[in-house]
């Protein structure tokens, strides 16, 4: 090792460092001081001293998908600029966010996909959370194929015809059956029983994460390789690769009650907002706004695209959308 024992080198280093710092010191004279106007952006934006006190702090759970980030960005921006709230964003998974209602660390979830079990536990049993109504968006889970396949094999978009194409989907993972990709373990899937009950010659392979699922679809479309799997909208990726929905037997209420016999499509989820009971009863104007906040899939997709494709920061994306959509914003604040 050469590094050992070069005291002279050390000394030289020290001298250089010393000179450098004094040079910096000289250069600094005349620079702006901490706390002067240059750093004002770091201070919490107060929309007036009276309202700031009334709103207080709002803890928003940020669940890990871009659409959610878009919701949160717009809501947070408006809470801060219009109501003078202090917003704390917490990056959490869904399950942990719900737990946060109980421990008092999460005030609001802005886009909840179903989760009947958690609703039962935290809303009915522990009574620490309340439903705040729909977000105005519909969540659709379903089966999707890559677009090039839908074009080449038009009848592939009906699950009744899938067996005809099962061979195309064979991979090293699925053996002699077609591979059906499931993604994120965060969602309930009934694909296993569904495939069995519909008599399809497919095997479910668990990609294991949304990133792995999207990458698989993206790569398949790029290389014109077959791929079928579980996906959902709204999702930013659909604007990059418009996956094509595969028709399943229609959903009727209760048809998915027994996973052993399920033979129908997923229900449409009315995505809703959940708040902690504490926040809901606080009288905060922030809560009234969250309750009124509703927008469409298209609105969300615009902001999600700003973030995911145009690589804007969520704050900038929200500001841009708000500036472009003043009428919609104003509607949330008129009583």
């Amino acid at each position: 090792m050469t590094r050992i024992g070069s005291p002279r080198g050390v000394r030289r280093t020290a001298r250089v460092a010393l000179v450098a710092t004094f040079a910096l010191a000289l250069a600094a004279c005349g620079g702006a001081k901490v706390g002067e106007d240059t750093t004002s952006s770091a201070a919490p934006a107060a929309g007036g001293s009276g309202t700031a006190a009334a709103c207080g702090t709002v803890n928003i759970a940020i669940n890990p998908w871009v659409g959610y980030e878009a919701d949160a960005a717009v809501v947070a921006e408006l809470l801060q600029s219009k109501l003078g709230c202090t917003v704390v964003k917490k990056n959490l998974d869904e399950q942990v966010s719900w737990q946060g209602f109980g421990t008092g660390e999460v005030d609001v979830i802005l886009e909840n996909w179903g989760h009947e079990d958690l609703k039962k536990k935290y809303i009915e049993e522990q009574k620490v959370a309340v439903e705040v109504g729909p977000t105005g968006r519909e969540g659709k889970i379903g089966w999707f194929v890559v677009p090039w396949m839908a074009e080449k094999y038009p009848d592939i978009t009906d699950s009744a015809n899938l067996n005809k194409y099962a061979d195309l989907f064979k991979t090293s993972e699925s053996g002699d059956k077609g591979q059906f990709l499931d993604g994120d373990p965060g969602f309930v899937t009934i694909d296993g029983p569904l495939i069995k009950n519909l008599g399809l010659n497919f095997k479910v392979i668990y990609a294991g994460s949304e990133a792995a699922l999207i990458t698989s679809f993206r790569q398949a479309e790029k290389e014109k390789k077959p791929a079928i799997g579980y996906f959902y909208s709204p999702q930013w990726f659909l604007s990059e690769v418009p996956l094509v929905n595969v028709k399943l037997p229609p959903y009727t209420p209760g048809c998915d009650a027994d996973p052993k016999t399920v033979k129908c499509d997923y229900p449409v989820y009315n995505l809703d907002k959940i708040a902690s009971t504490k926040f809901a009863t606080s009288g905060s104007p922030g809560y009234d706004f969250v309750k009124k906040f509703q927008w469409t899939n298209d609105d969300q997709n615009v902001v999600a695209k700003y973030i995911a494709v145009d690589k804007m920061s969520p704050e900038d994306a929200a500001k841009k959308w708000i500036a472009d959509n003043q009428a919609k914003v104003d509607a949330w604040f008129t009583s």
Partner: protein
Amino acid sequence: MAVLEAAKTTRPPAAPPATAPTGPVWAAHRGAVVAGVVAVWVALWALLRNRFTLTLDTASTTDLHLRINEIRDSIDAGRNSNPLFLYVFNEIRLVIDALTNAISGLIAQPAFGRPVPLLGWLGVVAVVMFVAWALGNGRVSLLAGAVFVFFGLQGLWTQAMDTLALTLAAVLVSLLIGIPLGVWAGLSDRVNRVLTPVLDFMQTMPTFVYLAPLTLFFLIGPASAVIATLIYAAPPAIRITAHGIRSVAPATVEASVALGSTPRQTLFGVLIPVARRTIVLGINQTIMAALSMVTIAALIDAPGLGQNVLKALQTLDVGTAFNAGLSIVLMAIVLDRVTTAMSERVEVARLMTPQAIARRPYLLGAGALATLVCVYLSYTFANYAVFPKPEGSSLGYVGDDVARVADSVTTWTQTNLTFLTQSWKDVSTAWILDPVEHLLVESPWFVVFAVAVLLSLVIGNLRAAVTTAVCLAVVIGTGLWSDTMTTLAAVLVATVLTVLIGVLVGVWMGRSRGADRAIRPVLDAAQVLPSFVYLIPFVALFGATRFTAIVAAVVYSAPIAIKLVADGIRNVSATTVEAALSAGTSTLQMIRKVQLPMAREALVLATNQGLIYVLSMVVVGGLIGAGALGYDVVAGFRQSTYFGKGLAAGLAIVMLGVMLDRVTQAASGRTGGAKKR
């Protein structure tokens, strides 16, 4: 990271070599016995295929899993009245939160009524350089300074400081607990025996399993993140400290006692000073382990670079994820080099001339003064407090470029190499992975059980066989036998690949200094780069498959195996090599007949470490298509209904780890004994 391997290598062998195998029947024909057992296994598999396989569907749960859910729910419901929560967990949380917030307010986040932290970037750079220089040497000081400025240029100053603050807090707490425990375990065999399985548990239980419950106990915030990190990072400090105390020569201790020292004097006057260098190694390993938790802690809102990686993953933005991953790698390298230099300080000081020693206090004083000036500047002036960023860029001066280059490399690879990777994947899966998996998964459970116990007995010893039996019994208890076998198949294949690569590259590195110098930094990076960064390119190249998971595991575990083999080869005595050379041995003969056999212990160790590292990637594998236990664990984190199943899967992974570790250690103890004979 010349010393990264020390974390686990220094674990004392579980079984004393004294218990050499007593059954000479198989001792003489070990290879033949193993082959015979496997042959019988294959025959039984063909005969009883797909019966008694204890399969559980991915979406199903057992009563045990639901019971665990209920226990969790009752803890959750009673947390406001439970005295344990009120008086223990809350207190711990308050202390750790206060510590973390103090460090964070110092370097990372606005605090004390200021819009910025107390120390701005210039102050932090100066302090880091001064500390690295005073406790290490000039070279590491310059490295540290350069890297910290680079964080700013990457546009990640605040995030890097958040990560540093959290890491420092976790390391401080780890050492506060770990070093005293380590000393105790070093002094007492009984404590050591009790502690070892606990530490095994802490290191092999996947973090995903306890991440969600931690937020129940310690709430969402710094405390939970620090504790999650500490569970994984404290064991190396404990183990290596204990090892350091143990390896102090008994003569030294006896001399001290003979001179009339009290036990306390012996401990603080002899044992700890002599073991100091090893203890610093332990600190180094704890820091590395803590940094490897950055991304996972981000899942429960830990601030810092991990957030950047996770956010980038949501939009499949590999470049941005790489930029943040690079920061983590650089931070690991700086902290490693600085702590290593600290441990070498004693020797350096001894080599100093009297002049240099006399001058040192003045130099230190001057350095301190310069540092103070910088600190003052960064406290006062905005430009030295907040790292400047060019207009209109999202990632600072070089961050955008780093991201762009990483992106284009990834895209090029994904476009041009997939034909190669896909066929490679298909062939390996069909010819290697599938046969192993069929044999393990489709055989009746009792056949696999018996084979595993027998093989442990033959390869290891009686003790290893008993451990295997107990571990597999627990696996059956978890209700996840079939998933465990699927995971085991992938783990075994990945380990074989790891050892193969370890031998190939390790021999090369061990024989050539130049190769060593060129390859080692790459190995360091592969070990600390968060795997989340390369998951997307891997899925693009190989698809979401079991093979992809194996590749990811090999990338993570091969470095340790390579380093161990290289060190083993290098440690073969020079006289032996020269003797063989003068006898006219060819290069290939030299490697096969001299160097590899003499480095046999290093090979077994490399296998053992390779296994443990592969096992720690099981959960990551679950995220990219491996299914089985890894997927179960992730599902347990993501979905409340699968919590119990995830916990059971975590337990199964721990059991696999303990089993494989004990068997390979028994094998290494045996070869050690054989050499003596």
